[in-house]
């Protein structure tokens, strides 16, 4: 039997998921299950559902109650060990007074607040070193929905939304509010000590582009920080393997992912140029644009820190939308403390060696001379890093991880993002010489993409072209040499194109280390004295077990070399990742 402490959405969903195999008991200290979500108000405006999903709770509760394997005990707090702690999240609110309420209070009041002038404060208690440094992730979305609902129920309301940057994907609601003249978006953070509760209403002082302002509001709604409990996630490790897997997916366990051409240039190229420009004392400018993902931003800020370490003058220019460093604010702090300059730019003008722009925060026109400029990444890279941001990428080509997020919105967005990903077309595709094929099934058994089958009419193996990823594993293993692939030319180093970051005249990039065969390795040893094969790290292989096949090939080549009386170490097998910064050229 499993005991779950807490009957919120997490506890209920978990109970349902476990009820197939176990009896489950849920202890809820309140009189009703449903947790905080119980208080959430429907955000529909008119006939339009804004997909807040609050109503799904009723379905969930009904399903749990119908389930015979689940017993719910309410009004009782469970004490003891061996329970799954699902006691939910807490709000981190910096202040509260009569007219300063949290968004949850707002929900509980069904959005009915007195007064005409209402202000929403985003990031109240989040992204703030005195409260919670990280972003709570959902606040922008629900503030947008709440504001939208408020205007709909009372058209007389005037709304001000104070924000740092908007990270919500609720673009339709955002666009609607932005176009509405009753709504002001103010990019500013009101200092908490400047929020003064009056007899009626609240007076605040804040600074925006136009300077310091004072204003009175009837009500202020805070979007407080949300903090979870770490142990909620620890329990999954003790659970059955099925859940551990789900945890891996949800936890988006970090995989060493190889990265694409454009980003690689940003990283490798950026560093290279810094070295050449170092003596001239000119700085490096990292440029971000509106569509820079948090992955791109992170990599660029890391690059900036690295460059700064070399003693170079480094500036990072980011757009008005903000510095997209979701969850990695400490990186920003580190960069700042090292002296990397950050500018929020408007009216950008780029020329060959200088960039001029308006520094929005100070209002000055600035011009920077640079030794090298790292531009925002291009369209394809943007798409990939967007997908990376969402945690969609897997090490496999054209395979994406969708649906790891809890809300249907996010799942839908993930699916759409996966759909726009460019299909990775291989340079080479395997082709079978029908006369030579002996129908040995080697390729059928080894193809990691399951795209070879037997054509009984032709009496030969048949490669389904659309499925071929061009890894060459079939080519290197075909005992009849019936598979045509890349033309052979001998080199002293062969590297999987996903493992080795750049073209190098001494290195032959091959589609997968698994495409290397013993004969080629042997010939290379005899020609050059030794040979090196660079493969991906185990979990990085885009062809499932290409690196393992490569290792088998290397072992078999070593055995042959041993037979011939040569030193077995003449064949070197190295694992690398494109993302490793320090690499030698072999």
């Amino acid at each position, binding site marked *: 039997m499993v005991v779950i402490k807490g009957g919120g959405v997490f506890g209920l969903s978990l109970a349902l998921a476990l009820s197939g195999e176990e009896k489950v008991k849920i202890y809820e200290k309140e009189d009703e299950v449903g947790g905080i979500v119980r208080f959430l108000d429907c955000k529909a405006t008119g006939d339009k559902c804004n997909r807040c999903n609050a109503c799904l709770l009723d379905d969930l509760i009904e399903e749990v109650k119908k389930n015979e394997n689940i017993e719910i005990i309410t009004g009782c707090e469970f004490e003891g060990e061996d329970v799954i702690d699902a006691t939910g999240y807490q709000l981190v609110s910096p202040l509260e007074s009569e007219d300063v309420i949290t968004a949850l209070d707002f929900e509980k009041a069904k959005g009915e607040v007195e007064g005409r002038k209402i202000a929403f404060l985003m990031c109240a208690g989040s992204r703030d070193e005195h409260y919670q440094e990280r972003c709570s992730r959902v606040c922008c979305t629900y503030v947008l929905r709440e504001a939208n609902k408020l205007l709909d129920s009372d058209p007389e309301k005037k709304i001000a939304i104070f924000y740092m940057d908007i990270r919500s994907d609720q673009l339709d609601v955002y666009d609607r509010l932005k176009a509405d003249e009753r709504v002001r978006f103010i990019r500013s953070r009101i200092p908490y000590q400047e929020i003064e509760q009056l007899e009626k209403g609240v007076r605040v002082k804040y600074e925006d582009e136009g300077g310091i302002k004072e204003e009175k509001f009837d009500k202020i709604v805070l979007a407080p920080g949300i903090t979870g409990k770490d142990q909620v996630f620890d329990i999954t490790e003790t659970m059955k393997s099925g859940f551990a897997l789900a945890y891996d997916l949800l936890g988006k366990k970090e995989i060493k992912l190889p990265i694409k051409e454009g980003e690689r240039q940003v990283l490798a190229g950026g560093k290279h140029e810094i070295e050449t420009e170092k003596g001239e004392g000119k700085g490096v400018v990292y440029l971000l644009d509106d569509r820079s993902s948090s992955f791109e931003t992170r990599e660029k800020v890391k690059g900036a820190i690295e460059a700064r370490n070399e003693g170079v003058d480094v500036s990072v220019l980011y757009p008005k939308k903000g510095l997209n460093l979701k969850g990695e604010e400490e990186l920003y702090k580190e960069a700042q403390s090292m002296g990397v300059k950050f500018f929020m730019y408007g009216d950008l003008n780029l020329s060959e060696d200088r960039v001029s722009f308006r520094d929005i925060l100070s209002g000055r026109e600035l011009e920077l001379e640079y030794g090298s400029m790292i531009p925002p990444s291009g369209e394809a890279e943007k798409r990939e890093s967007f997908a990376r941001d969402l945690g969609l990428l897997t090490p496999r080509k054209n395979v994406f991880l969708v649906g790891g997020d809890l809300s249907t919105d996010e799942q839908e967005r993930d699916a759409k993002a996966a759909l726009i990903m460019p299909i990775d077309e291989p340079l080479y595709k395997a082709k079978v010489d029908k006369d*030579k094929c*002996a129908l040995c099934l080697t390729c059928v058994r080894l193809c990691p993409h399951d795209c070879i089958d037997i054509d009984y009419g032709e009496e030969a193996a048949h490669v389904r072209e659309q499925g071929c990823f061009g890894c060459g594993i079939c080519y290197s293993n075909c*005992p009849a*040499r019936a598979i045509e692939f890349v033309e052979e030319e001998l080199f002293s180093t062969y590297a999987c194109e996903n493992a080795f970051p750049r073209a190098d005249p001494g290195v032959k990039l091959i589609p997968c280390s698994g495409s290397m065969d013993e004969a080629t390795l*042997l010939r290379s040893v005899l020609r050059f004295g030794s040979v090196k094969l660079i493969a991906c790290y185990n979990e990085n292989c885009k062809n499932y077990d290409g690196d393992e096949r490569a290792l088998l090939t290397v072992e078999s080549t070593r055995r042959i070399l041993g*037979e011939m009386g040569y030193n077995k170490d003449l064949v070197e097998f190295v694992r690398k990742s494109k993302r490793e910064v320090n690499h030698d050229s072999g």
Partner: protein
Amino acid sequence: MIVAERKELEEIKEMVEPYDRILILGCNTCATIRLYGGEKECEKLSIELGDVFKDKKISYKVVERQCEQEFLEDEAVKKEIEENDCVLSMSCSIGPQTVVEIYPNSIAVPAQNTSFIGRAVEHGIFQERCALCGDCIIDETFGLCPIARCAKSLMNGPCGGSHDGKCEVDPERDCVWQLIYDRASRLGRIDDLLGIIEVKDWSNGMHGTRKEVKHV
């Protein structure tokens, strides 16, 4: 399918040492499919021998089936065999024997030790399934051959050396009598194993008989 294992390079070197022009002859049937004598293996061996004997002429060719004289009598194959001093056959041992029968003046040596008849249990891993005993009894053992797969070729097993389903001869090896027993119990026919399988006529197989079958 016939499974063979390539001989050690040392042994092959000794066999071909006296000859200057060596033709490595692959076979496109069992030898290719069982990964011991197809074009890829021929290529590898030619690189090895080419490096060991730098002044010998080493070449390779693959024929459809070395056990069929029609494929060996093909003009191109005939030319190659006659131009070389020695044929190093990569097929099962039927290959070199067929070569010398058809070309009485030629020398053919085996590169392989022909091991057994078996199947690929997974890619690259072959296991014996038939011992060529000439008197098949697998109808009585639910389709599993104890002659080929039991270390003692017991017809009424298992013996006392069967432990946890493995054979005492090799802990990696399944005890086939355990497999037979498991299969019988799955089929609910365990009583069928109570009978004794009679001694069989070994003169039909194994050694010492001249075997010929007519299918005409």
